[in-house]
């Protein structure tokens, strides 16, 4: 446990060792705000909720989260420090978890810094704060799922750009699988239950369910399982590279 904490602390500090972390947070906040007010018509809707704010999160994460995760393991490989890390008395799971949690907390911090919009909506009207809380939780879980995918891809390559692009592509598939566009391709020749399964694998479907305030345990478990699966895959990838 303490090894996870040690790796977590080092990793989180490394985000803030360069200005990149601050730049990232600023970009995230500007984009989140701009999308809410201009594309989401926050004022014009005349409704006291944060639906226009949260509905853009999947698309915001699609490009911003891979930027957080791409360096997680790629940089270790590139600088060779992975050899140091993996010959210290830590288990693979501790290393993977510690690094992932640091990235997740960093993403959570960026998300938490959007709180002025929550204050704004409470100032303007009487929103259902329970729904907003659920949506924040859903958004955080979804960020974790994106990050877990990014962790695994980052572990496969020493090139951060490649890690970024492949992560965006895979995350895009996970987003899209809830769209009619994708489902129609399958619905013609696959049984309905399988089509429903594909749809239920979508980040979008699960996130939208949570962000509407319906905190169904199944949606939460879905994200937890996605995170667990991809982190396990990361450990397998790193282990298999040791044997290659």
């Amino acid at each position: 446990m303490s090894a996870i904490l040690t790796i977590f602390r080092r990793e989180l500090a490394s985000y803030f060792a360069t200005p990149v972390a601050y730049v990232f947070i600023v970009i995230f906040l500007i984009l989140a705000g701009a999308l809410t007010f201009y594309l989401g018509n926050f004022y014009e809707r005349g409704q006291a909720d944060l639906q226009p704010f949260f509905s853009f999160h999947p698309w915001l994460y699609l490009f911003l989260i891979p930027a957080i995760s791409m360096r997680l393991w790629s940089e270790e490989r590139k600088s060779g420090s992975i050899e140091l890390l993996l010959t210290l008395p830590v288990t693979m799971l501790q290393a993977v978890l510690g690094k992932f949690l640091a990235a997740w907390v960093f993403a959570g911090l960026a998300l938490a810094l959007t709180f002025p919009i929550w204050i704004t909506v409470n100032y303007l009207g009487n929103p259902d704060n329970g729904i907003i809380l659920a949506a924040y939780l859903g958004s955080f879980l979804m960020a974790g799922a994106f990050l877990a995918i990014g962790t695994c891809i980052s572990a496969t390559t020493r090139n951060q750009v490649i890690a970024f692009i492949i992560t965006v592509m895979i995350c895009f598939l996970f987003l899209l699988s809830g769209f009619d566009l994708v489902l129609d391709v399958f619905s013609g020749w696959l049984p309905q239950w399988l089509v429903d399964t594909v749809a239920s694998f979508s980040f979008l479907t699960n996130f939208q369910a949570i962000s509407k305030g319906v905190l169904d345990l199944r949606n939460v478990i879905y994200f937890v399982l996605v995170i667990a699966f991809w982190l396990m895959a990361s450990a397998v990838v790193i282990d298999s590279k040791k044997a290659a």
Partner: protein
Amino acid sequence: MIKTHSLTKTYGGLTAVDALSFSVEPGEVLGFLGPNGAGKSTTMKMITGFLTPSAGWAEVCGYRIDSQPIKAKACMGYLPEGAPCYGEMTPWQFLNFIADIRGLRGEHRNARLETVIGQLQLEHVLRQPIETLSKGFKRRVGLAQAILHDPQVLILDEPTDGLDPNQKHEVRSLINAMSKDKIIVISTHILEEVDAVCSRAIIIARGRIVADDTPQALEQQSSTGKLEDYFRSVTLSEVAA
């Protein structure tokens, strides 16, 4: 002690390390010699658990690196080739990170930090990011990291590469001072270093041991009495064959 049993590593069709078996006892300083690509680093990476062997096994302090990796790694200090570090950290942050991971606490921790910082003369660069340091300092930070927990087994991949003659001398004295009850394995290209610090030398070529004796005995086997000539005779004939 370190023990390897037909340790083998193949990459595709290429055999980098070919059924290497040897053991090292406490008090020995083993020099690992061989031409580039002979398999020195690969062997060290397998002993320290960074690479998984294709066949065979390695045991450190009585723990198999494949079945009890945490215990084996805990009693080892390792300086990887090129002394990789986290460049954005300062030596002070980096050594504290290592102390945390190694589970050093309280008085003992402070004493160890103070000792290694003194031994490797890092006092003046403690607050500078490692990536801004010279090659020699980076190497010394790497060495400090490896010896911080006063390990029973020390594995150093080219520890003096990039150091100036004075620093080389200091690192050699450091190794000599530590060698009393420990096991130290160093890989090097510098044959004079073997004379200076090693009590035993293993020469490997194409993944196999071609010589294993004290440096003095190896010198005597050469017609000229020089280790360099002996090295050339065994490694070149190996490549030709």
